[in-house]
């Protein structure tokens, strides 16, 4: 990677109690695959979608009585950016690896449960791909593992 890109950052603070908004925020940040830079500071590579999603989260923090400011910024050095990117890529790679493992393991399941597993893994794959901002190399193998499971389900049905 050469040069640094623009990131959207959310600086936030939420009251410790009640815990519901904290958990909701944590779930949303996890779904988006945001990088937790510090306690109360998260980042995503900026595009119209990530910016909008963090804007809504900023509003929900404010509605819950917290503080939130959205920033657009660039890491000071390419090395710093690489560090964040590698961490995000690693997190997504681990998710792909778990998916491949599950797809492979389920090939020994009975046909009915294999079909249910397939539906779930397809959904999970779609979710992981959405937060795979830096094209982790495991995306291809993960997709292939799920499609291999799909083929085995189709063969049973045929």
């Amino acid at each position, binding site marked *: 990677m050469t040069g640094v890109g623009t990131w959207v950052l959310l600086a936030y603070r939420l009251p410790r109690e009640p815990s519901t908004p904290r958990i*909701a925020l944590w779930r*949303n940040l996890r*779904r988006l695959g945001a990088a937790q830079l510090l306690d109360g500071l998260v980042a995503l590579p900026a595009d*119209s979608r990530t910016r909008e*999603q963090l*804007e*809504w989260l*900023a*509003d*929900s923090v404010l*509605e819950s009585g917290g503080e939130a400011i959205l920033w657009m910024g660039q890491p000071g050095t390419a090395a710093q950016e690489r560090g964040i990117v590698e961490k995000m890529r690693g997190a997504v790679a681990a998710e792909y690896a778990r998916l491949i493992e599950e797809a492979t393991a389920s090939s020994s399941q009975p046909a009915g449960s294999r079909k249910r597993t397939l539906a779930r893994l397809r*959904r999970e794959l*779609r*979710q992981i791909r*959405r937060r795979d901002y830096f094209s982790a190399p495991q995306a291809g193998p993960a997709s292939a593992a799920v499609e291999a499971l799909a083929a085995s389900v189709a063969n049973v049905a045929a």
Partner: protein
Amino acid sequence: MKWVTRSGPHVDRSACAWLLVRFIDPEAEFLFVEDPDEIPKDATPFDMRGAELSHHGGECSFEAFLRRYELDDPALWSIARIVHNADLEDERYDAPEAPGLDVLMRGLAMVRPDQDVLALSGPLYDGLYEYLSRASELGREPS
């Protein structure tokens, strides 16, 4: 009335505009801005930060409209579930139509200006509403 929202309307904003014209304000006129500071005084904002008709409590703007105007048509709430899943990506509802509709609206916004997106998506939502109304009456998917 004048209504204002953010430029580049995707599924939530286009669905809200359709809902406005069809159920709330047939004379609705739409403006698009890039920043909340550009909202004209005589226009009502929607699907923008800080607006009443926007995201609240984990719900999308379309849901905010249905609540604010007390629209309880089951077909509209079916559309709300689709828009919610497409816009918030949280899989809260069983709405398999959501990813498809989301892609279609994102794609449309890439090739057409804002006003065209509303004009072109309107009949699509008319059709979706008709389909879901029939499904709601029949208790199953219409043919």
